[in-house]
């Protein structure tokens, strides 16, 4: 019984903790969500350690100075450091909101931060609101959370006079006739909006029920705009009152032509002054409107009922409770549509069709930093990619990597045949709409033509689609050069001297089932003296090349490399597979794409004389010493998600990646 009770209470407390997470407050239509996970961060580093770190100290002293207080810990800011902080934004055709949600632990502490700056805030119940002096952003908080919102009005939305007119805003242009036309429209509809503000508007930002909030500023707007108007004032007022509830656009236009006709020719300067004045006025109106919208949006966050982002499957699936920071961006297609409505038909017709949401996560643990990125594809695309990526690296490649010496490698494996077959489809999906519907047929034709010309099957036999590039260390090579000696008369005598040059030994290989074509090419090369043969090893006869390049075909693998010794070793089967570390083996054999750079294997290997002196060499080596393995890999496609990871291991002797990062910053600042 006790156990049940205990587990029940545990469940309850878990739920409670979850309920308090501010993610609940993020609306479902948020476009971007970024999270900083306080609890995970301060698991890696105690608050005390942070306060004592270079960054922490700097932060505390700077804020202490600017606020004239004495902070000793970041806990003094009143923020709940064990909870998640969020940033999100919401896009619409008329306004973009940038919002922060920060968990509060001690509202009093937070208030003491701002009080000193002599900024006033209002309080309603336990909700406190402060409008920033320039009215471009609002801070609102209660005892649990702090909300900061700043909104920016979309200029393209208000460039549309019909739309902007609804909000009593006109698109002022420095062009008399135009200005007149929009003027009258503006006035007219400004009135229309006074009593029924925005309720009818569907494409404008949300939350319009609260008439009270919006009424005041809008009224003000109209008054002002009337005041500035001289000609046609009475007329418009009347008309406006008539059309209070429906916006009638025909009338004012007719009126506009009237007033324009009455205008006497103005002095250009005067006109420009008026223009400037009007512009400032309109900008102020926009600003006020933005504030109204922001206020409504902030109220909504605190007291509204709406679907939260938690109902968005794409978002919730992107989360990982081990990450210390996360970023999620809703679909790329949406991004194109939202950011550039000016793309018009292209955007709407589905440019970037099939590319869904993006996410990135940052992990830090006792071994490494890791950034994991992912992108959702449409089912169609995911299927294409699955076919293309249905190949593993040739296992025979593995024995040519020597983990003890390798400076780095890069590998990829795709199915050439699937690639050739799927590529035209992918191209069409991504850019098809950009070409316009008319091009559909041509694109289809093009795809068919490629299929006709290429025998995918045959090509995929020559180049199977997997390749590995590896640098198995540096090699010192003796090179000769010309210099001079001088005799007793200082007469010049040309002499040949030698010196050592350090160059990386690279090896590049790809699989080929059908080497007939390549063999023919080699034969052709030999006949044309482009290639010289030494047994089964060939050398490229390129005079201009500063390095020698050799190649050979063995066991269905085509090798390229600049070390003859290595080439001979391959030819004589001198390579065994026991030199590959487990980690490298996994990286290479489990992923379609992998990249690794092992800085440790480069430390002290390049002679100082070749990097430009002792000093540079010292710096070079000490930088390398601080680096662990850096590697990248692609993950297998899961469902519709393609993803890739970049990791950087931390050197031994550091507790975890976060602390290592802080120590790096501290060193850099010294």
């Amino acid at each position: 019984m006790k156990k049940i009770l205990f587990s029940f209470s545990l469940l309850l407390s878990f739920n409670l903790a979850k309920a308090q997470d501010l993610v609940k407050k993020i609306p479902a239509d948020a476009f971007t969500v970024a999270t900083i996970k306080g609890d995970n961060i301060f698991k890696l580093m105690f608050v005390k350690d942070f306060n004592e770190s270079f960054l922490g100290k700097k932060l505390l002293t700077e804020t202490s100075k600017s606020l004239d207080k004495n902070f000793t810990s970041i806990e003094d800011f009143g923020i709940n450091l064990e909870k998640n902080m969020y940033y999100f934004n919401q896009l619409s055709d008329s306004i973009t909101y940038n919002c922060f949600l920060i968990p509060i632990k001690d509202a009093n502490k937070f208030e003491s931060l701002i009080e000193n700056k002599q900024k006033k805030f209002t309080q309603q119940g336990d909700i406190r609101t402060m409008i920033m002096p320039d009215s471009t952003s609002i801070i609102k908080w209660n005892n649990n959370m702090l909300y900061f919102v700043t909104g920016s009005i979309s200029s393209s939305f208000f460039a549309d006079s019909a739309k902007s007119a609804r909000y009593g805003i006109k698109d002022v242009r420095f062009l008399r006739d135009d200005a007149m036309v929009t003027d009258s429209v503006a006035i007219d509809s400004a009135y229309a909006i006074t009593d029924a503000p925005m309720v009818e508007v569907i494409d404008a930002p949300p939350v319009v029920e609260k008439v009270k909030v919006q009424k005041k500023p809008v009224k003000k707007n109209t008054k002002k705009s009337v005041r500035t108007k001289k000609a046609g004032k009475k007329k418009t007022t009347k008309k406006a009152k008539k059309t209070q509830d429906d916006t009638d656009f025909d009338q004012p236009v007719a009126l506009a032509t009237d007033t324009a006709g009455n205008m006497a020719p103005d002095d250009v300067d005067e006109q420009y002054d008026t223009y400037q004045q009007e512009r400032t006025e309109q900008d102020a109106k926009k600003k006020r409107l933005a504030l109204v919208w922001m206020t409504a949006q902030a109220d909504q966050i605190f007291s509204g009922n709406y679907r939260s982002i938690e109902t968005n499957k794409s978002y919730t699936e992107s989360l990982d409770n081990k990450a210390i920071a996360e970023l999620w961006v809703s679909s790329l297609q949406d991004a194109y549509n939202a950011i550039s409505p000016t793309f018009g038909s292209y955007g709407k017709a589905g440019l970037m069709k099939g590319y869904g949401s993006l996410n990135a996560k940052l992990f830090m643990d006792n071994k490494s930093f890791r950034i994991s990125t992912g992108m959702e594809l449409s089912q169609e695309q995911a299927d294409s990619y699955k076919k293309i990526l249905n190949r593993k690296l040739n296992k025979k490649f593995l024995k040519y990597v020597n983990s003890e010496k390798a400076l780095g490698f890069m590998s990829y494996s795709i199915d050439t045949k699937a690639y050739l077959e799927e590529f035209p489809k992918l191209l069409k999906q991504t850019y098809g709409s950009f070409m316009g519907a008319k091009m559909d047929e041509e694109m289809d034709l093009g795809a068919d033509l490629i299929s006709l010309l290429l025998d995918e099957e045959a090509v995929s036999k020559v180049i199977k689609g997997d390749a590995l590039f590896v640098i198995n260390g540096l090699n010192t090579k003796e090179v000769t050069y010309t210099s001079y000696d001088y005799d007793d008369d200082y007469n010049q005598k040309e002499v040949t001297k030698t010196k050592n040059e350090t160059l990386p030994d690279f090896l590049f290989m790809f699989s080929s089932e059908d080497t007939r074509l390549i063999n023919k090419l080699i034969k052709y090369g030999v006949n044309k003296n482009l290639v010289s043969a030494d047994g089964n090893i060939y050398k490229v006869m390129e005079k201009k090349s500063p390095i020698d390049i050799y190649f050979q075909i063995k066991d269905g693998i085509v090798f390229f490399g600049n070390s003859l010794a290595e080439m001979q070793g391959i030819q004589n089967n001198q390579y065994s597979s026991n030199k590959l570390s487990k980690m490298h083996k996994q990286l290479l054999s489990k992923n379609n794409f992998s990249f690794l750079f092992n800085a440790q294997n480069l430390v002290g290997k390049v002679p100082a004389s070749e990097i430009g002196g002792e000093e540079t060499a010292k710096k070079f080596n000490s930088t390398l010493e601080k680096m662990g393995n850096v590697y990248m890999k692609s993950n297998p496609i899961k469902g519709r998600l393609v993803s890739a990871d970049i990791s950087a291991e931390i050197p031994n002797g550091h507790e975890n990646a976060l602390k290592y990062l802080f120590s790096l910053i501290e060193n850099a600042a010294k």
Partner: protein
Amino acid sequence: MNLKQFYKLLLFIVLIPVLSSCFEVIEEISMKNDGTGDVTLTINLSQSKTKVASVMLLDSVQGYKVPSKQKIQQELNEAVAYLRKSEGISNVKSTSDFTNYIATISFSFKDVSNINNITKNILARQKIRATNSSSYTYNKTTKTFSRKYQSIGTAKTEFNKLKAKDKAVFNGATYTSIYRFESVVTSSSNPASNVSKSKKAVMLKSSITDLINGKINVSNTIQLSK
């Protein structure tokens, strides 16, 4: 990917990014007692030939355009043509070796003062400002050979404006001047200069960076036995 692109890709990976290279500039003047003589100028990049060859395959390096072999040859030819027209200069020859990256220009002069300003003018034709002003005189009666050298202050400031990476190109580069005479040298005023065993030649070797920075002055007055 064609072969050239493949090479370029390789070079970016293979080439060690710092282009510190060794090259030498040698200036030889053989004076006869009557005041005539021969000059040989040599630029030898062979110590860095791997790097030079690599760079030559690239279009530009560290933001500088890399001249093609043809362009270099053309400019060398232009310098030769200019010399042939210059007063008192004869027997102009040039060699270029694009395997070892060595180029020379040699010519004879009637009077050593003929060669004053030549370098400067050649450089000016290539739109390069000279880094120094240098003039030679030979007095037949006193048998004094002298070189007046003045590094130009702006050269130093210009040089110091270069990025460390670009400056590194000049690390290890040397400038050598050799003067040979028919008579025995009795004194050579520049303490950095050496007189040969035969006492008939003077050599001065310095690093190019020191020369540009004005740390070393190659002015010299050489007195020959009468």
